[in-house]
Structure formats: structure tokens, C-alpha cells
């Protein structure tokens, strides 16, 4: 109690110096909060993006590192593609129908082909029996009206029960304008959409796309849609035009910046027929996800299989990387603040060595004086920490604007979470403790006589 009282009074006595220390801590904690709010925001957006998908297992090429949202602006990278056998069996059958033993004879074993997992063993049993549905996904980036747009290629058809695949996998997407183009064709397996197609052989029904809200706004697609018009895309074919069929409702996420088109169109545009970025699998029984993954891995050791949870983990790693990058920048501020705090406490200690000597002479033990220094340092750093959090919250809005320009997104990326606030408070406590460390060591080692005779 006496240590607290003495510490508090010394802070008030040395107002200018206390204020400078507080400013140092404000800058450190503020930059920490502002910078890491972006990483937190990225994590939040990626998580909600992945959670909104109805995917149980993701299949990618082995070693492919893919940002779960694909590339957007400067984010993401060109990930490797999953090679799919191009010469598909014409009578390839659906995963559903494989359960019908009478159809098993239709399956053909194609070595190295992903469809291999459907092949029955010698007894006629399906190797991976729990798969409900699977679709191939691809992504690419093209310029439309001078703006780089990320397109997702995915089946626009229906599953065998008539459910539009779009709705089956990307749940929660609602149309704001136009209608979802639903092909009558059933995509019973991932191959039926991968047949080799030239750009020129695409039908008009296939040269369509759905746009995210923000992209539609930027490219003025509503007007094109209302006029039933088309929009030009630069491809190998000079007059390739796409028709916007629908605009998705605003959802304040990455989806606002994506466009979606039939996968066969996407593959034809990119000349990558037979190659997809990812395969999304739904498993019939959620309890069987791990077993399904294990079986898939057993039969296809060269491919990578991730449950939705693990996929989130991949995004978590990317976020962690972003977190560390931003923390490294914030670290400069933290080091400056810690040094400033340490310097203040050192100056304050050296100025009061005689006072400490007198206190010790009248019976104060070392821990009272050490507590006094620690409390003083903590008061300054916690005040600075709280103010720094407020400054960081304000700063994050400015940083958000910078991110919007840099990554060409307009939704708020910065996300101040309770965890971040707790980290920021812990950081301010850390600065306070480290700042007091050397002065405390000095005081602990100091002899009373030397302290009483101390000359600055």
C-alpha cells in the first residue's frame, strides 16, 4: 500500500517524464492493436468464408499452398492444380449410383485417376463408401473493364436429386439481381464437367457468370444485366463475351469480390481442361469424415486431403504468418516503448537513490522499494496501454483504408477482438515489467551507505 502511494505520488511529481513514457507505450500498444487488427480481420473473414461452405474434405495437389479464398488483389498465390485424367470414361457413374451394386461393373480402373477411389475392390465393395458428392473447383484471374477479377469455376448444374450444386456447396448466397443460371445437366461426378472443350465450342448458356456485389458495383454490371447485355473478357479468342446472369447479395466478405462461372467455361478460358485447383467432397455421414479422409489418403498418397477443420488450420497458418509479419513491424514500436520506459525508470531510480537509501535506513526493506519501482512502471505502462488500445482502434480505421487500397477490397478488414485487447494489455504489462527490471536489480544490489552517499 505504501509502495503504491509512493509510486503514484512520484508519477504526479514528474509529470512531463511520466507523460513521455505514457506516449511511448501508447505508440507501441496503438501500433500493435492497429496492425494486428488487420490479421484478426483476415482470420475472421477467412473463417466465415470457409464455414459458409458445405465442404467436408478438400483435395489439393500435394504440397499446394492455397489461400482458402483464392487470390484477391495482392493476396493469395497461384497454387498448383490437381491433375485429373483427361480421357474420361464415357460411362463414368455417379458416386450415388455406385452404391447400386448393379452399376459397379460400369466402373473402370484408370491408374492415377482420381476417380479411382470409386473403384470397387475384388469383392465388388466400394473402396471409399461414404462419399456423398464431389465437385471440381478452379480459380483464375482475368481483366474485365480494366479491373482484375477473380473467377471461380464450379459446376452450375444440379445434383441427381435436383439440388443446384451452387446452393449445395456455397450456402447462404442469395441473389440480389437476376437469377442463378441452373443448368439442367446433372453433374453426377467431378468428371462430367471436365470434358475437353475449346473456347469456341462453348454454348451461349455456358458463357455466363454470376458476380459478387462489390465487383458488380465497380463494373456497373447491374446495367449490363438489366439490358440483357454481355461483357467482354480478354482471352485467346478476341471476341469472347460473357453474360452476367445474377448479382449476389452484399455479404461484407471476400465473396463480394468474386465472380462465378460454369467450370467447363473456366477451364476452356484457361486451357486447363482436366485440371482443377481443388476438389470439394461432401461425406454422407459427418462421423465418417476422418475415415473417408484416411481411405482417400491411403489410395491416393500423392494428393493432399484436408478436413474442413484442417483447411481452416491452413488459413490459420496464413493468418499466423500475417500476424507475425505485422507483429514484427509493431515490435519496433514495442522496443522503443520498452527502452523509453526503462530509461524513465532508470533516471527516476538514479535521481532517488539517496531517497531509497534513507528509506532503507529507516527500515524499509528492499521489496518495498522494488515494489514501488514496479508499481510506478506498471501504472505508466497500463495507462499507456489503455490509451494505446483506444489509439489503436482509431488507427485501425485508417489502416483499414490503406488495406482497402492495397488489396482492393472495400469491406472492413480490421477486427478488434477481445483476445487482441487482452494481448495489448498483456503487452503493456510486459513493457512495464521489463522497464522496471534493471532499476529493481540496481536497487536490490545497492548498499544503504552507498545509496546515502550517492552523487548523481
Amino acid at each position, binding site marked *: *500500500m*505504501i509502495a503504491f502511494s*509512493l509510486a503514484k*505520488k*512520484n508519477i*504526479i*511529481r514528474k509529470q512531463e517524464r511520466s507523460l513521455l513514457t505514457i506516449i511511448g507505450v501508447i505508440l507501441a500498444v496503438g501500433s500493435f492493436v492497429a496492425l494486428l487488427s488487420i490479421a484478426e480481420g483476415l482470420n475472421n473473414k477467412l473463417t466465415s468464408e470457409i464455414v459458409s461452405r458445405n465442404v467436408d474434405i478438400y483435395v489439393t495437389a500435394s504440397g499446394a499452398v492455397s489461400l482458402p479464398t483464392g487470390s484477391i488483389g495482392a493476396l493469395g498465390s497461384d497454387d498448383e492444380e490437381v491433375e485429373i485424367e483427361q480421357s474420361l470414361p464415357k460411362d463414368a457413374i455417379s458416386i450415388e449410383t455406385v452404391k447400386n451394386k448393379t452399376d459397379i461393373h460400369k466402373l473402370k480402373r484408370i491408374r492415377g485417376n482420381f476417380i479411382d477411389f470409386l473403384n470397387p475392390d475384388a469383392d465388388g465393395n466400394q473402396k471409399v463408401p461414404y462419399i456423398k458428392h464431389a465437385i471440381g473447383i478452379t480459380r483464375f484471374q482475368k481483366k474485365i473493364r480494366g479491373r482484375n477479377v477473380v473467377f471461380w469455376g464450379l459446376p452450375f448444374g444440379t445434383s441427381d436429386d435436383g439440388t443446384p450444386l451452387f446452393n449445395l456447396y456455397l450456402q447462404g448466397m442469395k441473389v440480389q439481381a437476376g437469377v442463378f443460371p441452373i443448368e439442367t445437366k446433372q453433374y453426377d461426378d467431378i468428371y462430367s464437367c471436365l470434358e475437353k472443350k475449346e473456347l469456341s465450342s462453348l454454348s451461349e448458356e455456358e458463357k455466363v457468370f454470376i458476380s459478387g456485389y462489390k465487383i458488380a458495383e465497380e463494373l456497373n454490371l447491374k446495367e449490363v444485366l438489366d439490358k440483357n447485355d454481355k461483357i467482354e473478357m480478354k482471352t485467346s479468342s478476341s471476341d469472347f463475351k460473357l453474360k452476367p446472369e445474377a448479382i449476389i447479395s452484399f455479404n461484407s466478405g471476400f465473396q463480394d469480390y468474386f465472380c462465378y462461372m460454369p467450370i467447363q467455361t473456366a477451364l476452356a478460358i484457361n486451357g486447363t481442361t482436366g485440371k482443377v485447383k481443388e476438389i470439394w467432397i461432401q461425406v454422407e455421414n459427418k462421423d465418417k469424415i476422418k475415415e473417408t479422409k484416411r481411405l482417400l489418403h491411403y489410395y491416393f498418397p500423392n494428393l493432399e486431403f484436408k478436413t474442413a477443420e484442417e483447411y481452416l488450420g491452413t488459413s490459420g497458418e496464413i493468418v499466423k504468418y500475417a500476424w507475425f509479419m505485422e507483429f514484427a513491424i509493431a515490435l519496433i514500436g514495442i522496443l522503443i516503448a520498452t527502452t523509453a520506459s526503462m530509461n524513465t525508470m532508470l533516471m527516476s531510480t538514479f535521481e532517488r537513490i*539517496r*531517497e531509497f*537509501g*534513507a*528509506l*532503507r*535506513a*529507516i*527500515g*524499509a*526493506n528492499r521489496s*518495498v522499494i522494488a515494489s514501488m519501482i514496479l508499481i510506478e512502471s506498471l501504472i505508466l505502462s497500463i495507462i499507456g496501454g489503455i490509451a494505446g488500445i483506444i489509439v489503436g482502434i482509431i488507427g485501425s480505421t485508417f489502416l483499414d483504408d490503406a488495406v482497402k487500397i492495397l488489396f482492393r477490397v472495400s469491406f472492413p478488414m480490421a477486427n478488434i477482438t477481445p483476445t487482441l485487447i487482452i494481448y495489448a494489455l498483456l503487452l503493456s504489462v510486459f513493457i512495464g515489467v521489463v522497464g522496471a527490471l534493471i532499476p529493481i536489480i540496481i536497487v536490490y544490489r545497492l548498499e*544503504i*551507505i552507498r545509496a*546515502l552517499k550517492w552523487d548523481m
Partner: protein
Amino acid sequence: MRIRMKGIYKFWEGEFGKIRVLENVNLDIADKEFIAIMGPSGTGKSTFLHLLGCIDKPNFGEIYLDNTDICKINEGIREQIRLEHIGFIFQNYYLIPTLSVLENVMLPMQLANSFVGQQEEKAMKMLELVGIQDKWNYDTAKLSGGQRQRVATARALVNEPGLLLADEPTGNLDAKSTREVMDMLKIVNRQQGVTTVMVTHDSKVAAYADRIYYLDEGRLSTANI
């Protein structure tokens, strides 16, 4: 408090070897006695006081405060003795500048957690004893040297110590303040019954003591001034 010093030797490690500060010092001070130690600068007067005040240890010898040999106890107990049984008055007062007059006097009680609930009352009584009660809420920086020494005396006495150690208590004071402070110390010694050991180089100040000792080149002798 009765004090006995037996065969005290104290050396400092100097640049050119050991420097002898105190040599075979033997002294017996009776309870409630007021003694003065005189001597020129650098003869070990302050060291003598520091040994008695448990803030330094001799190289050889024994020092008894009542029946406790303070050379053989650990730092924790020495701290306790300093806090509860010894009062210090310094030439430079060493008041805590962030605390008011009253708070400075209350400080030893707060450190000892003693007189809880009546600390203010007790501190005011001490200020009254040293004649500075009207300035209880003053900033110590606004007091004169004599007034500061009174506050320091009140602080030294507030835990009701058995021994009061005064290191050149009038060293920074003018003649008038010196008289006032010494009169006060004499009164305190008489009224409170506190054994008082004072170090000074001023013979007029030393004259307030019951007995005067002279310290020269580390040796203690009775003085005939």
C-alpha cells in the same frame, strides 16, 4: 536502550589496500543517555553511527543493542531493528519530497504496519513534540532547514525507538536553527527517554550531550573540551 561495543574494527577497501576506519573501539552507553561523538571530517564518525544503526557491519567486534549482538543477525532482522528500535536523523534530512510533512512522519508507521488506525493522530503528536504541528500539510520543500530537521526528528521518533542516531543534525543549519534543533533533541531525550548518539564536529552542539567522545584516526577517547 543500552549499547555495548566491544573491540570494533572497521576497514575500507581502498585503491592502495585496506584503510583502517575504526580501531579497537570499545564503548558502553547507558539507557536514556545522550552522547556525542566528535572529530574532524573523515575520521569514521558516520561509520561509527552506521554500525550502531544496523546499516553496516564491523570487520571484527561485537555490538550489543540491549542483549542482541547485531553483528550476528541476518539482514531481515536488522531491517526489523532499524524500523522498530532505531530512529535516524541525517544532516541532509532525507525527507521524501513527494510526501507532505504529516505523510513523512507517518511513513515509518506505515512501513511497520504499526499504530494502524491511529497513525495520523500519532504523527500529529510527534509534530507537536518537535513544535511544527501547524505545518503538518506543508510540502517539505517549502520548509526551512531547521523545520525540515524537526520533521526528520518526528519521523525518527514516531515508531517509539529505543535509540536515536543523529548524523550531524545541525550541519546544514544556521546558529538559531541549530539552537532550536538541539534544544528539541535534548527535550526529546529527556521526555521520551531515548538513548541518543549524535555525531558532530561542532563543540557547541556536542555540549548538549551527557558525555562527549572524540574519534581520531579510528580511535575513540573521552574528550576534555
